[in-house]
């Protein structure tokens, strides 16, 4: 089974960092959680959480599919394992696969970056906040099963930010 290869390089002329040809920047949990809060606070004006989820889905779908293509990865089991590793490489936490097939499934995150950052910054919240992580999972299913984005819907059934021991996400077509 292949392991994730991260080709990191810094362009000294443009002073930009690239990981596997993706322009990459570092930010902190304050930034990520405040973006999430902004999305939540804007719900009366615009569906901010949907925009955040879909942005995540689109961006990470491209990262995954580009990686599979550039590295000749076609086996679904291998694509799944690489997607889990890539999730962690972004600092998003840890995915443990529960059930996963072309019709959907259930995944667990024993560690979820957005929840961890939110808890550290503000403590518990009464509803899910991991729209970025959920968008990644939607991207992952589409990329693994060769479907376009928006093929899957991801909903958090349990969330660490509300006090659960782990985050559980349900994926449906």
């Amino acid at each position, binding site marked *: 089974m292949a392991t994730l290869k991260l080709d990191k390089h*810094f362009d*000294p002329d*443009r*002073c*930009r*960092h690239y*990981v596997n040809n*993706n*322009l*990459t*920047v*570092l*930010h*902190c*949990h*304050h*930034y*990520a959680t*405040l*973006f999430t809060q*902004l*999305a939540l*606070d*804007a719900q009366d*004006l*615009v569906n*901010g959480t949907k*925009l*955040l989820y879909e*942005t*995540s889905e*689109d*961006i*990470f779908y*491209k*990262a995954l599919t580009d990686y599979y293509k550039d590295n000749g990865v076609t086996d679904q089991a291998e694509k799944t394992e690489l997607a889990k590793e890539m*999730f*962690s*490489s*972004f*600092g*998003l*936490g*840890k*995915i443990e696969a529960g059930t996963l097939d072309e019709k959907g499934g259930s995944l667990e995150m*024993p*560690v979820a*970056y957005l929840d*961890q*950052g939110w808890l*550290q910054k503000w403590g518990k919240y009464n509803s899910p906040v991991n729209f970025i992580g959920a968008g990644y999972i939607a991207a992952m299913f589409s990329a693994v099963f060769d479907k376009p984005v928006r093929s899957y819907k991801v909903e958090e059934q349990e969330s660490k930010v509300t006090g659960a021991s782990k985050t559980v996400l349900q994926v449906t077509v």
Partner: protein
Amino acid sequence: MAIDRSKVIEQMSKVSVEANPDGLIPAFNVLINAFPADFWNTFTYKMVDAVNEDIKDAVEELFVNAAHECGYHTGYGIITSKEWDAIVKPMVENTEDVLHGAYAVFTAWGWGKAEIAELTPGEKMVVRVEDYYESDIKDHFSGAKADRMMAYMIRGVSGAFMDLAYGGDYDPAGESGLYTFECEQTKGIETGDSYGEFVVKKRNDA
């Protein structure tokens, strides 16, 4: 100024941040993420585009505030880190050097090629930035030119850097010091200028 900017950029750009077995990247007293830059630009573009004209300014300020708070806490984490102590601190002679060093680290992190153009200690700072990743937001607009200046992250971080330099002792709760200064963007690559320009001054109510 005693900061060797090229040396700081060269050495700080090599600092590696890797995920731990939990898939988290704890560094500089914060939890780091390493997303594609277009993640931040795409969401920013979508949110500003989605809201009505009369509240775009308010949404923009939320993005600036997110960066201001991030810059305050992460900035403090950086200037008290072992990497800073090893590479930058030996060059620092005064508070102004800390600011110059901070912008060299800002550049090393890939946020943009940023340098202080003018500094009145405790009062005003002008920063010029070339090739900042936020300027790539222009590619989301027809004609590859934004209809407004959108380097909210640089605005927020610049305000935060002045807070850390001249806003009093660092407050982890962010209840004092943070938001002593505010930053306005006066030029933008995304709107057609050759560089971004950011002017930081004390807030009127500070």
